[in-house]
């Protein structure tokens, strides 16, 4: 009896302690400082003017960004940049809601095609209002053509790039040697022919290595002399004959390798990997079109891999050196409270006024330079020396023939339709000609709808 009473008392005690602990935990959670409060409390320079900076990087990239912010904060004593990572598409939504509610960040790093829509709606500050005449002259003189093109909308600069992307072919010299190919092909046609020799199958006829994985249609069409937009006449050029030639070539290549075959082969690979899982590392592709960021990742995750890079070869009669580029850019909201501080930070990071100092950031992030002044900084030269494969991309980004996303408010719609008709054509569901026609029809129908609804286009 006594034992049962002790056991009962003990249970009651345990129950009481657990209940009190849970109640305290709940109260603690409720009163725990929120993120903003913590940020304020943890500010390193509380006496300075705060500049709120949102960006979309996460994981290892976030560390690089945080380091740049730290460096900036140490470099002067007027502003404190406070960085906040808002990854993915939620960043755009958060920005829009913040801007509409009168509480946007002071500056935001973006890579989504947002400038036309946001600029059209008056959400962004044109940099022409922030730059001094000297700074404007410096930007116009030094920045590569693509850098000036990426952030422009209706003759104004709304985005200053802090990193530009370029594409090239990554290839395995060993695969070339095995196929008896002495040097990397000089033309698109040669590459397509040679890739057949580098493609491998197992005893069941299943693909074990793809000779050549081209980039998407939108990335490749410029090499054929095409593109989605003519920046000189400010016109969409969806049905440019070169676009059709490009798609025909991509379809022919895919049909040769077998759509179903390639689809199955790729579905077993971690094609989305941005790290050591990239199938190229394991030799699943002999040659593949990809961006400059792979160079740094390969150095980190596969330092012993023997690989090389080369410009994507243009077809005969095409446009060598042409290409498609996107990038990371800084935008400053119209309703931001600290535009001067935001612009100071953009200048610092982009290297507009001190390219040698900024070169370090581009090295840290494995980003392409915005001007020859950054590219020729000793630290950047050393980076290229240590990563010779990077030179291909540095050369590519200098090209005056790099094209960017069409600067129209329905950019995302166009991208979706381009991807859709490309997919249909590659699957053999429709001919390349029908794909181009469908793209043109769907986009022009959308333009007509927008006109009817009173949009500006």
């Amino acid at each position, binding site marked *: 009896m006594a034992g049962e009473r002790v056991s009962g008392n003990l249970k009651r005690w345990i129950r009481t302690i657990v209940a009190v602990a849970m109640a305290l935990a709940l109260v603690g959670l409720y009163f725990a400082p929120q993120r903003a409060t913590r940020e304020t409390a943890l500010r390193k320079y509380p006496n300075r003017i705060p500049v709120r900076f949102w960006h979309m990087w996460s994981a290892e990239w976030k560390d690089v960004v945080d380091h740049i912010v730290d460096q900036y904060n140490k470099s002067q004593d007027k502003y404190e940049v406070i960085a906040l990572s808002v990854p993915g598409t939620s960043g*755009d939504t958060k920005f*829009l809601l913040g801007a*509409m509610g009168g509480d946007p960040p002071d500056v935001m790093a973006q890579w989504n095609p947002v400038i036309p*829509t946001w600029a059209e*709606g008056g959400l962004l500050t044109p940099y022409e209002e922030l730059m001094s005449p000297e700074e404007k002259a410096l930007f116009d003189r030094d920045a590569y053509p693509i850098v000036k093109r990426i952030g422009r909308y209706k003759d104004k600069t709304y985005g200053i790039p802090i990193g530009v992307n370029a594409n090239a072919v990554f290839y395995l010299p060993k695969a070339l040697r095995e196929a008896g190919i002495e040097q990397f092909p000089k033309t698109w046609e040669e590459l397509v022919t040679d890739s057949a020799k580098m493609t491998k199958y197992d005893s069941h006829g299943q693909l074990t290595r793809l000779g050549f994985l081209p980039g998407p249609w939108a990335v490749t069409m410029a090499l054929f002399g095409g593109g989605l937009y003519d920046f000189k006449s400010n016109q969409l050029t969806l049905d440019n004959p070169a676009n059709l030639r490009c798609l025909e070539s991509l379809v022919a290549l895919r049909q040769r390798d077998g759509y179903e075959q390639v*689809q199955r082969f790729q579905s*077993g690979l971690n094609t989305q990997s941005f790290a050591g899982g990239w199938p190229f590392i394991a030799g699943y592709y002999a040659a593949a079109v990809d961006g400059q960021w792979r160079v740094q990742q390969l150095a980190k995750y596969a330092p012993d891999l023997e690989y090389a890079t080369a410009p994507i070869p243009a077809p005969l009669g095409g446009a060598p050196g042409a290409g498609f580029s996107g990038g990371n850019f800084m935008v400053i909201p119209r309703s931001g409270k600290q535009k001067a501080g935001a612009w100071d930070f953009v200048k610092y990071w982009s290297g507009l006024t001190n390219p040698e100092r900024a070169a370090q950031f581009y090295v840290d992030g494995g980003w392409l330079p915005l001007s020859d002044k950054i590219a020729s900084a000793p630290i950047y030269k050393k980076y290229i020396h240590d990563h010779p494969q990077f030179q291909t991309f540095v050369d590519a980004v200098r090209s005056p023939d790099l094209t960017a996303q069409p600067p129209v408010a329905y950019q995302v719609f166009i991208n979706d339709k381009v991807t859709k008709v490309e*997919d249909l054509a590659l699957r053999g569901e429709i001919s390349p000609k029908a794909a181009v026609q469908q793209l043109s029809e769907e986009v022009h129908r959308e333009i007509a709808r927008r006109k009817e609804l*009173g949009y500006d286009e």
Partner: protein
Amino acid sequence: MNARTRKDLTGYVFIAPWLLGFLTFTAWPFVRSAYLSFTRYDIVRPARWIGAANYRSLITNDDTFRNACWVTVKFASVAVPLGIVAGVSLALLLNANVRGITVYRTVFFLPSIVPTVATTAIFMWILNPKIGLVNGLLEKFGIVGPAWLTDPKWALWSLVMMGLWGVGNSMVIYLAGLKDIPTYLYEAAIVDGAGAWTRLTRVTLPMLTPVIFFNLVMGVIGTFQYFTQAYIMTKGGPEDSTRFYALYLFDRAWRYADMGYASAMAWILFIAIMAVTGLLFKTQKKWVHYGG
């Protein structure tokens, strides 16, 4: 103030937090979206009245909208009945008085409490045509499985198949319904000489029809709003074969910044759901038995 008024007021004060939340976060957006559906609104600029242009464009000029409607109806017309059949069958099996039945019930219910995103991520691997579990099993029988999620002929049906994974939720409701059937009905049926099949078709299923009706209505509403799995697994592809209504609505709203158009879509969806639900309620007199 008389006692009745005071009592009413006290009641309203107690429900005021919920009432305020409802008015602010449900009722007002509901009314506002009706207005926005008649405007051109891109979030960035103020909404501008354009009359019925959004509705006109959707109905007469938008192939993707028509395709999204068709995909959603096709999915609902297969996934809902299949879910009901699977749920009822499972509930019947798990209604048996066998040893360890509570463990079985838990096992079948467990998948429905796994977060949708986690289930979806797992199914992306299970349905992988090269290294996935399903094709691995098919291969053992000499069958080359399809590219489930990248083949337009199979993608939608893959999502239907995945939907069965979460059938445990409705199974529990069916099970509760089965437990509610009075035993004297079975006793009377046995006395009348009814076999197992007759008892199932003449007693169990008719008595279960209120629960089936409930799950049918909820299922139709749920599938008309189907989004997460398709957003994660297929993004509407391949070839728009899984571009569900809600997915297209999301794209229009947040990716194309076309809130007016998306609001019009939301209202069409609302009216469609109301119409189908109303139709189902009309039919219930003919097949739903409420006992008593």
